[in-house]
């Protein structure tokens, strides 16, 4: 019985199926909000699903000199990594499906897999635009990885646990400590735009420069899976941010679920505002911004936390 319940949790709720539905709705909300900010009407609610279904029915073209197996495997690996990461984030109530001490590190590592997959996809396509895009993807990863890890580990340092569910529980008991994390939260919001390759950090897929970047040669169902992976990544990242930086729960599972939905909606809207209100940052500016602005702030934040933490411990 336990096993059946776990399988249902992993496959349906709050696992794979919920993730897919949430990802599509998130894409819709993101696009619609952006459209309204840009004085457009925007797509109807079923557009993300329609896009995926259309792509699934399309012919798949694989470049002649691409590694066939790798080319086919990358989208699935990318999606699988994102879906696995989602299992360790609490959605229903305060406990995730899979939780253990140190799962936050596992989530962060699983979240780098889509980026690496994107790099390999572009590299494997043997196309100038795709290689250019994959180089930028990798460069961008080196830029955001350090500040992102630093700010996401900040809440863990205070809570003294490296489990997302544990952090959530700790802060729900001591809600005032979340205030210390506000600078880290702001940096995390900005940097997650880079992680998700959304404007203003969308240089790796800049359409007007490198024609869409690493996924130029992808088509049909492989492109559909890649897009699903990207949408799901958005959900996973905002869920993680919600769990770490907005840890307000009541203890009643269904109210917590509604709270969770409200939190991720708010975060998606904030990300949509960031997306709509800025020009695309150049690669060198991105590197400079991450290493000279965000990383020092994150480092200072961590030092402050360590001192405060010492104070609490005493």
């Amino acid at each position, binding site marked *: 019985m336990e096993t059946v319940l776990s399988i249902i949790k992993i496959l349906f709720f709050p696992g794979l199926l919920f993730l897919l539905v949430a990802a599509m709705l998130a894409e819709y909300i993101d696009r619609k909000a952006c459209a309204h*900010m*840009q*004085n*457009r009407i925007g797509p109807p609610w079923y557009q993300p699903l329609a896009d995926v279904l259309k792509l699934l029915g399309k012919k798949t073209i694989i470049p002649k000199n691409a590694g066939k197996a790798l080319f086919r495997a990358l989208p699935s690996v990318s999606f699988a990594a994102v879906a696995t990461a989602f299992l360790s984030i609490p959605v229903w109530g305060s406990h995730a499906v899979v939780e253990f001490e140190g799962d936050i590190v596992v989530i962060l590592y699983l979240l780098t897999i889509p980026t690496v997959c994107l790099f390999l996809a572009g590299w494997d396509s043997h196309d*100038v*635009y795709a*290689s*250019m895009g994959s*180089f930028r993807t990798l460069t961008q990863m080196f830029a955001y990885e350090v500040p992102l890890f630093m700010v996401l580990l900040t809440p863990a340092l205070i809570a003294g646990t490296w489990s997302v569910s544990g952090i959530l529980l700790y802060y729900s008991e001591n809600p005032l400590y979340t205030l210390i994390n506000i600078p880290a939260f702001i940096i995390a919001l900005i940097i997650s735009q880079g992680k998700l390759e959304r*404007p*203003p950090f*969308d*240089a790796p897929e*800049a*359409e*007007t*420069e*490198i*024609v869409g970047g690493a996924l130029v040669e992808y088509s049909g169902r492989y492109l559909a899976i890649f897009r699903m992976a990207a949408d799901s990544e958005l959900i996973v990242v905002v869920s993680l941010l919600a769990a770490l930086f907005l840890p307000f729960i009541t203890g009643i599972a269904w109210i917590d679920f509604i709270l969770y939905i409200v939190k991720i909606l708010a975060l998606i809207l904030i990300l949509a505002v960031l997306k*709509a*209100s*800025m*020009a*695309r*940052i*150049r*690669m*060198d*500016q991105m590197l400079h911004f991450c290493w000279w602005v965000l990383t020092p702030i994150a480092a200072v934040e961590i030092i402050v936390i360590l001192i405060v933490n010492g104070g609490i411990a005493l």
Partner: protein
Amino acid sequence: MSEGLTIPIGPQHPSLKEPVSFLITLDGEVVKKAVIELGYNHRGLEKACESRTYIQDLYIIERVCGICSHAHSYAYCRCVEELAGLQTPRRAEYIRGIVGELERLHSHLLWLGVAGHEIGFDTLFMYTWRDRERVLDLLAEIGGNRVNYGINTIGGVRRDLDENICQHILDVMDGLEEQIKYYAELANTEATLIARLAGIGILTRDDVIKYGAVGPVARAAGIMDDVRIVEPYGVFTEIKVNGVTDDHADVYGRTVVRIKEMLESIRLIRLMVKEMPDGPISVRAPRRIPTGEIIIRVEAPRGEDVHYLRSNGTDKPDRVRVRAPSEANWHGMKHMLEGFHFADVPIIIAAIDPCYSCTDRAIMLRSDKGDTVTDWESLRRTGIERYKKMGIDPSKIRMRTSGV
């Protein structure tokens, strides 16, 4: 990254609105070498003008450019009017001035949107094109068409502006001024926008003179080359234009110049609508134009537009030469691209507001090494032979004979 990776931009590329080819050789992310190939869009319009009458040519000249259609037809009409010794009515000149400034507004708004899109700032793109739509609606109301207004004719204009249209123009200007002031503020304050535009595509004052750049490119480097000021014509002999220059000499400077020019255009339109005299809107033009040749300059939105016309006493011109502003700005392009980032290439190209189809001309280079020159007849014969091999016989198609 491998040394000397060459990336093609064009002939088909999302950042290009018309076909043109740039071969960009990169060193890392920095452009080491840029090779520009024009010539995908040659339409033979100068040749076509020689075999049609002056009135028919008006139709072709209006379609040289999809954006600055008024500037081209204005320059052409002035050429013919000067040769025929016609004195256009003052009211006609005012109407030409109003339409010309409206055209500048819609062209600059279009450019601002395209520039926003090139640097990934789609919100700016959507906003400016929404505002541009209001100018296009005005132009459609005046001329019956959104981009080819057909307002100019030899000897004056074809449509008059009545009270209602004048009032509507003033109303739209009030709304637009507010928006354009907002864009000016945006260009001053939005950090990512400035970061992407400042310091790239530099063409200094000396370079502008060396490469002969015109329009906002020259004005952004501090050179006042606005024909409306340096050589006033038509309505601008009565209404003074406040020129806009900037000393950034880069893409940011060009943006600032264009935004300020829009504000100036709004001022001019208000003034012209207010001071427009009564009277006829055109004079009768002769069919045959006396022998002579003339060069006329008109300030198009993209810069100085030069038209040359040679007549031979018949009802068809002997030679028409159109030098669109983009043609002058191409020469500095290589210089502007090299040494900057690959990510800046689309916006640097866009910053001269290029118009490829207006620019493409066949140029014959003469050398002493005995190059073969193909004349019109033998070119036609070669074409016929080529198609005969494919089983098509085009030899029955009648060739339009020149007027001479």
